[in-house]
């Protein structure tokens, strides 16, 4: 079971992605991915990466596996593994 902290972090990342892709607040969840979000395409991913940089700082630009993240869960896991969140 996810802790309250985890849920807050997940919600924060979902919010960043929603903003980046001009989606309604609360419209995506940790289970969403490129397959379920039409706007998360090869150009949409640039907006997501830009928004993550804005939130978490320039150190995220050296995370090589972040550009190939396929889902919200992937992003959360990658950021956690690099101790960004």
């Amino acid at each position, binding site marked *: 079971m996810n802790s309250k902290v985890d849920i807050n972090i997940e919600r924060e990342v979902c919010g960043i992605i929603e903003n980046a892709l001009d989606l309604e607040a609360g419209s995506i969840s940790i289970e969403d991915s490129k397959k379920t979000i039409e706007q998360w395409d090869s*150009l949409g991913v*640039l907006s997501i990466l830009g928004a993550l940089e804005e939130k978490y700082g320039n150190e995220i*630009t050296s995370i090589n596996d972040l550009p190939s993240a396929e889902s919200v869960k992937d992003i959360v896991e990658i950021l956690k593994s690099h101790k960004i969140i």
Partner: protein
Amino acid sequence: MYAKISQIEYYLPQKIVTNEDLAKENPEWDFSLIEPKTGIVARHITDRHERASDLAVRSAEKLFQKRQIETDSIDALIFCTQSPDYVLPTTACILQDRLGLPISTAAFDLNLGCSAYIYGLAVASSLIKGGVSERILLLCAETYSKYVSDTDRTARTIFGDAGTATLIERSNNNKSIGPFVLGSDGKGYDKIIVPEWNLGSDNNDKMAENSNRRLYLDGAAIFMFTMQRVPKCVNELLEKSKNTIDDVDLFVFHQATKVVIDNIVRILSLEESKVFRGYEKIGNTVSASIPIALKQVENQNLIKRGDLIMLVGFGVGLSWGACLIQW
């Protein structure tokens, strides 16, 4: 001894491909999502038999005509391209002959993409400062469209073809070109790549099936590189030149796409009024993008004599470069 940019001209192929054209051909491409990210609504594309040298010749002839230049006075020709006419010889030699430049002209290609213009300026400026040359023709021309697959939604909506000609001459005052910051990171060589040689127009149909002869672009990885490297490059140049961001009157970045420039502007906290954007009707023209942007800046009277302009190129290689020019 110093070097200065005396004149810039550019040439765009006649054929214009708009987003509407692409949408008709690819109904599944949603331009309501694409256009706000790229900021590009149209691009110029070469005809099947039109090569990079043709674009370079057109732009050089325009420059000669406008400035009434004797071709005999050119003593070096640098051609920046990643879409040369042949594997060998160097296209610059072909251009020397086609443009009627004297055989005493030093002619060579620079195989670089989005950073090429900065490298070209650095080499030209060094040749002049070193007393090797006095009047240099720096040509940039790209036909990336020949590498791009018809079904590649990202690359096809971004890239356009173009040619430019820049005249660089000896100057007696120090209000000129430089200093420079240049860099490379070959670890990212495969992030923008055409794995096998594409010989150009004649064999295009046969090659269309071979994905190794098509452009592969990892846009997300390149974007990360840009966000990481470009701000550092700008700050290094400011430090090297003992300037601050406020001292720079205008920033002319490689015209990659809207989303790329938006994020550079955000990270560096630049004033939008100090950043030129000229990609809308031309797209990303690789090595030609900065000289085209500079000419657009001049045509739109956005700069005045003495203004300090920072030029920043970045991309395929991975490679980057920045310099200051005093207009």
